[in-house]
């Protein structure tokens, strides 16, 4: 029941956010209509960073307690974070085509985000290559802790190097008009609920599989 409430909240927030960003907000002065993709791009990117941060905490928790529940949650968080990170990269490339004139221009933010995607994809490859459950969990946790160093690098890349990518969050707040901030907040909350719902579902499936129950049956 609790999960269904999370799905429902996520659905309501994402639908409202889409409505606000696509149909209510006025076109932007310089970018026109294409800036609306930002309301999907930013929440995906922020929630993917959060998912990787959560996986860091859970990986440390696994190494300290050796409870498989933490390994289930950490790997689930990385899978969802990677999915969101790839979607953020794709939506960013579409935005960049209109704003900078090319889908891909090896901008520091684009490059470091691609590195984050590759590092976490290799985490999943590592997991699939190890048979023994304990070894898999231990090595994944260690890899998960070191992999996280790429995330602040990606986040700070626009400050560390010259970048075309705007820095949205500064010490003075967000560089957005009030109505845009509201639409963005609604989308971020919706995406957070989606992340929590997916994390819970994925870890429950992993627990069932650990207990020897087959969830995905071949048809």
């Amino acid at each position, binding site marked *: 029941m609790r999960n269904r409430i999370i*799905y429902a909240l996520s659905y309501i927030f994402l639908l409202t956010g889409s409505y606000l960003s*696509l*149909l209510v907000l006025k076109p932007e002065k310089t970018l026109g209509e294409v800036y609306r993709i930002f309301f999907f791009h930013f929440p995906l990117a922020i929630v993917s960073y959060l998912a990787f941060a959560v996986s860091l905490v859970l990986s440390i928790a696994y190494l300290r307690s050796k409870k498989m529940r933490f390994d289930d949650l950490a790997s689930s968080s990385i899978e969802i974070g990677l999915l969101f990170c790839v979607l953020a990269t794709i939506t960013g490339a579409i935005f960049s085509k209109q704003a900078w004139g090319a889908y891909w221009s090896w901008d520091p933010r684009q490059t470091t985000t691609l590195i984050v995607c590759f590092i976490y994809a290799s985490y999943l490859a590592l997991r699939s290559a190890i048979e023994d459950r304990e070894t898999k969990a231990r090595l994944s946790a260690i890899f998960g802790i070191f992999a996280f160093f790429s995330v602040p690098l990606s986040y700070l890349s626009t400050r560390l190097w010259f970048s075309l990518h705007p820095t949205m969050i500064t010490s003075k707040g967000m560089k957005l008009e009030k109505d845009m901030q509201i639409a963005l907040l609604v989308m971020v909350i919706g995406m957070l609920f989606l992340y929590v719902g997916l994390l819970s579902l994925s870890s429950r*499936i992993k627990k069932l599989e650990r207990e020897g129950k087959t969830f995905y049956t071949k048809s």
Partner: protein
Amino acid sequence: MNLQSIFIAVMLALTGIFAYLIYLDAKVRSLEKNE
């Protein structure tokens, strides 16, 4: 493609995704009950 069409496409995609999530949730729940 106008913005209303994009919104309808987003709405349908979200509905599909959440319907599938609810289906998966029900499947997990039934397996958990059979413990």
